[in-house]
């Protein structure tokens, strides 16, 4: 297992390098001078000149890449063209906020998805299942920003249950404050993904309930509860893990719309303002982070999968 993880981490290197080339080249794809793009439209000539020196823009292009990479490896991704703040510093303040929102959302998503998914798998023709299907369709179809606005109007403005602007309050510092500030955006995202995950749970549980080993378990006299929890669910979890992992990955990249609606200071809102203000260094940093986060989540999913499925050998 340990050696598997190390080998996988080594496999990440070429992927990340490739991504880094793309991120670096982004600046050259921007019309105009790369230095102008990096320091922003309102920069002084001195700042532009400094950037040129720092990035070796007078050197050959390949060398420029390695200079940039060298900086990046030292976690120096330049400065925001707008605020002048170092990009890594900016991201370091946003990443925990995004992780916290992702975790809250996933908890809500799973808490909603599993009972619903299980119920509709077990009673495919019941009224409850019809209601669940409707819920899933609505959860998927209704845009999160609209749910977000409704939540703000309902729970923040009408009754003052939650703040209408969600700040980042670290969970370990103030659990209640963290809950108050994160609940509404997390509910938005959580209900949205609960529709997707519930569908997966239903499909894979139904699939495993029709397998031979379920009949064996029943023939052994295992009560229905045990048949489902010990035999069917464990098998049904396998495909679900993958989809949950993918969702977590996409959350870590920031959830732009939700964060903007709730003014939540996560990566998503950072990306949003960076894009609208053409803050290229920040965009570069965010893209790099998203790539790394996805790779890491994938690794976690694979390890988890191997843990859940003894047939999978981590080699």
């Amino acid at each position, binding site marked *: 297992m340990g050696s598997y993880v190390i080998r996988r981490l080594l496999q990440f290197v070429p992927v990340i390098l490739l991504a880094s080339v793309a991120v670096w080249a982004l600046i050259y794809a921007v019309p105009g001078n790369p230095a102008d793009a990096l320091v922003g439209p309102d920069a002084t000539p001195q700042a532009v000149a400094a950037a040129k020196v720092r990035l070796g823009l007078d050197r050959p292009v390949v060398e420029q890449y390695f200079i940039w990479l060298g900086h990046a490896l030292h976690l120096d991704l330049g400065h925001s063209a707008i605020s002048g703040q170092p990009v890594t510093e900016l991201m370091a303040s946003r990443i925990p906020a995004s992780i916290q929102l992702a975790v809250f959302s996933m908890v809500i998503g799973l808490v909603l998805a599993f009972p619903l998914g299980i119920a509709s798998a077990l009673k495919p023709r019941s009224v409850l299942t019809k209601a669940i299907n409707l819920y899933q369709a609505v959860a998927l179809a209704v845009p999160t920003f609209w749910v977000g606005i409704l939540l703000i109007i309902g729970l923040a403005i009408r009754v003052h249950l939650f703040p209408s602007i969600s700040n980042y309050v670290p969970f370990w510092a103030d659990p209640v404050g963290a809950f108050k500030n994160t609940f509404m955006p997390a509910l938005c995202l959580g209900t949205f993904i609960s529709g997707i995950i519930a569908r997966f749970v239903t499909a894979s549980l139904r699939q495993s309930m029709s397998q031979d080993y379920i009949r064996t378990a029943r023939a052994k*006299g295992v009560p229905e509860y045990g048949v489902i929890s010990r035999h069917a669910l464990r098998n049904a979890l396998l495909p679900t893990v993958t989809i949950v992992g993918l969702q977590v990955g996409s959350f870590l990249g920031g959830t732009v719309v939700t964060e903007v609606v709730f003014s939540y200071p996560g990566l998503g809102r950072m990306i949003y303002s960076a894009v609208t203000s053409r803050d290229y260094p920040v965009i570069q940093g965010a893209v790099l982070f998203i790539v790394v986060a996805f790779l890491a989540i994938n690794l976690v999913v694979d390890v988890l999968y191997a843990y859940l499925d003894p047939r999978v050998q981590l080699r």
Partner: protein
Amino acid sequence: MVAVAPVLDISDLTVEFDTPEGTVRAVDHVSYSVDAGETLAVVGETGCGKSVTVLAALGLLGAGRIVSGAVTFGGADLLDMPAKKRRRLLGHDLTMVFQNPMTALNPVMTVGRQVAETLLVHEPKMSRGTARDRAIELLAMVGVPQPDVRYNQYPHEFSGGMCQRVVIAMAIANKPRLIVADEPTTAVDVTIQAQLLDLLRVAREETGAAVVMITHDLGVVAEVAERVAVMYAGRVVEMAPVEQIFRSPRHPYTVGLLSCLPRLDRDVSELIPIPGAPPDLRDVARGCPFEPRCEMSAARSACQNTRPPLMPADPNSVSACHFVDEVESWARARRGNVEEAA
């Protein structure tokens, strides 16, 4: 024969499936019973309803609907019994060995825990340690080598034959009164089949259980069974003691099955099908279901228009053929012809 109360008694069981193409009557008024300690073989071509009959009887049918019939186990009504009560019997007094051992075990649970579960479900007070020790004993009993190591392995680390040993271990764990073995050797290597049959025989001797042995294989029948029920197109067409089935079958279908049996100079013991195919179970024809393939019928109108009921053919056997009295001489003549031709 002394009248013993049967352990399992299936009477007039009819099972239907609703499919997009119409209703399939997979089991059509099937009756058979097994006495304590007895082995009954159920034979017939694939799709004739052997599995559906027992699955319906034991309440393990997924889809499908029991249209009529009664099933008793040790005198208690299995079909009307509350599920909870039936669960206390299943896996304890009444156990099953399945056709495909590779899929019958849960792939993500260790083999040992699956055996231990059979014990724990019926004796919740048993400690996990005791269950584990008992499970290891059982694995040793069914011939799993290094049972304490194998206990912690998963089904994919076992061969088909080994998986079937595990399934058999679960089936005998609680000293059942009846073991239903649904083609226990069909999916494994020929070399393993004999070992598994031996194992089942030992298990049966040790537990004193009655056995319903479902099989394609008349070789298996000859080896293990005391009585045989022959099924065709969802019905029992003949039932008789095993010597009599082989010596003087009383139904043309059974005659056909037996003539497909390999002779000593051939070594395949699998049935070679009788020419023609079983009827489509969707259209319930009026006459004898075997009529289209029956060499003895000669298109007589009784065969085409009236369904032959299962009737006593002689003191020991029943047969569903209008012309049951002709079967013996017809079979003899047919055998003569075949040998002449050869």
